[in-house]
């Protein structure tokens, strides 16, 4: 092919697409064929709560350390989260619970200023919520504590968390993974708040299968189990 093709007027050379352009559709074909796979892959990876939600670790008004309180001092989860056995919400403790001890301990610490201000003014502490299931999900903490799924199954090693972050995706597939096979997580009654729990004999599956039968644990996997 030559660039010296004469134009219509016979003077100016006419632009002609180089020959390799003929092969472009052929080259694009595999890319276009793979594009949907890439798109699906990207949505699978980036739209999932495993990507969007896990790792959320906001700054709180007071740098409260669960490691110090629950880990080092060994205060039970339920000292503050009193609702966890009774209803859907574990409960954010009221300022009064902080002041149970902090009226005396570290009572002049500047870090605790928001707590003292809340205590004197009666205004709520503006704690930032980390774990939030979608608003069409009706999760109930009490049911899970009664069936005895350890706190750490969903919240991780809170007793080691200086700053709490979301550890699990709280996605539907994640919920169903356990609802279909609770024996992987079941513990004996009364051990839900134990951190770093080791099953008896080290065999979670054997213990879980036994407990599932004994305690008659049948988690719902139908829609209205969690959605109303």
């Amino acid at each position, binding site marked *: 092919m030559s660039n010296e093709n004469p134009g219509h007027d016979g003077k100016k050379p006419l632009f002609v697409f180089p020959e390799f352009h003929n092969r472009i559709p052929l080259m694009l074909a595999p890319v276009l064929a793979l594009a949907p796979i890439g798109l699906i892959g*990207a949505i699978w*990876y*980036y*739209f*999932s*709560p*495993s*990507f*969007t*939600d*896990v*790792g*959320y*670790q*906001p*700054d709180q008004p007071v740098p409260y350390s669960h490691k110090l309180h629950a880990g*080092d*001092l*060994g*205060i*039970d989860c*339920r*000292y503050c989260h*009193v609702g966890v056995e009774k209803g*859907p*919400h574990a*409960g*954010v403790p*009221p300022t*009064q*619970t902080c*002041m*149970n*001890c902090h*009226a*005396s*301990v*570290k*009572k002049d610490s500047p870090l605790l200023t928001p707590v003292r201000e809340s205590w004197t003014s*009666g*205004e*709520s502490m503006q704690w930032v*919520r980390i774990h*939030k299931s*979608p*608003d*069409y999900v009706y999760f109930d903490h009490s049911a899970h504590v009664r069936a005895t799924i350890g706190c750490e199954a969903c919240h991780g090693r809170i007793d080691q968390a200086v700053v709490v*972050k979301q550890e699990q995706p709280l996605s539907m597939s994640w919920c169903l993974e356990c609802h279909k096979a609770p024996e992987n997580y079941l513990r004996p009654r*009364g051990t839900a708040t134990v951190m770093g729990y080791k099953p008896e004999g080290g065999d979670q599956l054997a213990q879980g299968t036994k407990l599932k039968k004994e305690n008659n644990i049948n988690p719902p996997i139908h829609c209205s189990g969690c959605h109303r």
Partner: protein
Amino acid sequence: MRSLIAMLVAAAALGGCRGEPSKLPPVHLNPNMDTQDKYKAYGASHLFQDGRTMREPPANTVQFGLSKESDEIYRGQDEFGNFISKFPVTLDAKLMKRGQERYDIFCAPCHDKSGGGKGMVAQRPGLVPPPSFVDSTDVNGRRIINMPVGEIFNTITNGKNTMPAYRTQIPTDDRWAIIAYLRALQRGQNARLSDVPADQQGSLK
């Protein structure tokens, strides 16, 4: 091919990896009605002046089933206002077990699991450690061993000295369960051989 790899790397770098800590609130690329305009527990409210969704019961109202008529159960007092010495609830193994669990949650941080007052929190600077309520050689220990259960109930309910009131954290039934377990701690640590059933005394000698 090299450009394709470069693009994939760039995409991964832009998007980051799963589970990376982030201070920014989650963005749901498909909102899906995940967050709806409704008031939920502990949420903020623009409707009420105090900014809270959760409401307190109006003044001078009584929650259904919580009339708290019994002075003995709800105040630990008899009809003359004296603290009662006899439990107003039935004592059984179930109550005792419940009491142990609740004691370990709410009391052990300061009073420690045996009642000696050497809990982890009590050892923090600034806090006056509570007296042992099991030590019969100590004046405070003796005082609490002989204290009527109604007075102990009153202390848990309303607090005393640096001990805060626990009426909001511990329901009434659990307070009585805790007192039952507290009595067991006192009894167990001041027991004599004659307290052990005769047929089992031999195994302790």
